[in-house]
């Protein structure tokens, strides 16, 4: 995925004749702006962010910006939605390779942590800055959290004999966001994958109970578990 990232000036199209259709150039510029949003927003915050910030990072003119987006909010929402769709696709794709529910959950979550470890700016955008970006952005956030929560937990929670409240899916989603956010805030962007055992525990505990969840999540060795349990 990382190689496909289009960011900063390095990936600007060559100047002069390059044999690309007008449509391809326009789309390329549009993508550069969409890709410029997360880092710009992390650096300046949504409120202080200007159209100029996005345009200059993307290496396009203000005019090109306004040909694509109404304003910075529109660009933010578009960028949020696209990045969320990518994340959902990554998580869904990874989860599909698992052979049972536990494995699907672990694969999906691990893929999410790896994806975000490469793109910590997205964490700020998704958790914090979205709150300054208006109601449309909040709508997209809600949709994305709902989708991810469903991907991660739906299978398990509908089948339980005495089902947990569906609110649990939300709180698990919130737990995951908080752990990721706190790690990024502490500068541990690259080590997000280390959160996987704790996150797995939080996801599994309602189904497996603390003892088995801790063992399955890798927070407790099976032998210790059986001695003390």
């Amino acid at each position, binding site marked *: 995925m990382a190689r496909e990232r289009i960011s900063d000036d390095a990936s600007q199209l060559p100047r002069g004749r390059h044999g690309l259709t007008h449509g391809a150039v326009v789309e390329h510029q549009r993508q550069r702006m969409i890709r410029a949003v997360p880092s710009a927003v992390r650096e300046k*915050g*949504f*409120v202080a962010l200007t159209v100029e910030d996005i345009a200059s990072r993307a290496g396009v003119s203000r005019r090109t910006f306004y040909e694509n987006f109404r304003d910075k909010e529109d660009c933010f929402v578009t960028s949020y939605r696209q990045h969320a769709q990518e994340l959902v696709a990554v998580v869904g794709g990874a989860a599909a390779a698992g052979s049972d529910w536990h494995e699907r959950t672990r694969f999906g979550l691990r893929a999410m942590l790896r994806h975000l470890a490469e793109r910590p700016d997205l964490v700020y955008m998704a*958790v*914090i800055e979205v*709150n*300054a970006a*208006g109601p449309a952005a*909040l709508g997209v956030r*809600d949709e994305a*959290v*709902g*989708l991810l*929560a*469903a991907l991660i937990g739906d299978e398990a929670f509908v089948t*339980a004999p*005495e089902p*947990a*409240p*569906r*609110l*649990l*899916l*939300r*709180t*698990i*989603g*919130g*737990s*995951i*966001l*908080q*752990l990721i*956010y*706190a790690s990024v*805030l502490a500068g541990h962007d690259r080590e997000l994958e280390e*959160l996987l*055992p*704790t*996150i797995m*525990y*939080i996801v599994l*505990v*309602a*189904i497996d*109970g*603390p*003892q088995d969840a*801790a063992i399955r999540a890798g*927070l*407790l*060795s099976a032998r*210790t*578990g059986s001695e*003390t*349990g």
Partner: protein
Amino acid sequence: MAGPPADRPSAKRLPRGRHGLPRAAVVSNQRERIIDSIVHVCATKGYPAVTVEDITSYAGVSRRTFYDLFADKEQCFLAAYDLNAERLVTEVGSAYAAGDLQWPERMASALRSLAAVLAAEPCLARFMIVEVLAAGRPALTRRDQALTRFEAFFEPGRLGLPDGMDGQELIGQAVVGGLYEALYTQILDGEAELLPDVVADLVYCALVPYLGHRRAMAASKAERERRARFVTDAAARQQPGQGRASTKSPQDTAKSEQAILGAD
């Protein structure tokens, strides 16, 4: 002097019904009026769009008075956040500490008290849980510190975790983040007033990482029954035929559950 002037422009954007201005809170000094004002104008138009003018006109004070007391909008926000965070932690803390209870019941008391405050003052709920995320980095730092204080209530829960389990210190943080998301979603949907109806579910979500499904469910059921008794008693206190001012009807309760559960 009792309250803000009647012609305040933002007054019409207040939520309908009870908006969290108990008489005791109708403040007499200007600093408190300004702090009360920023909570209300942020809740109604969102922190980024709020101007000092909005704050002063709702508070009924001059710009000069504002700038005598606060350097800018952000400093005013932080003062209001600090004051109310202190209030919430104190209030929830005394609910937690009250009586001779086991930890799960203490957590239920704490969550019940938090939900009650936020439901009684929807503007405060919006300000503390949602707007703080839009108010810049210093505000975020304050929020993170407040969350850490709430984590302390979960410390005794560690006794429920398996001996020798790694990463126990992260569980409290995870649970607080999860409860925050539940409150956030409901408040964002404009349904802060219905929070008392979801306390039983919040109790489950708070306890399950420590106690497992069965014990968390037992505590949740006890809380649900307690709430049902409260609603019945409150309805019984109403004169027959004067149901207008009654507490939540079953439909309202169902609506709130729908609102928080049906988000996907």
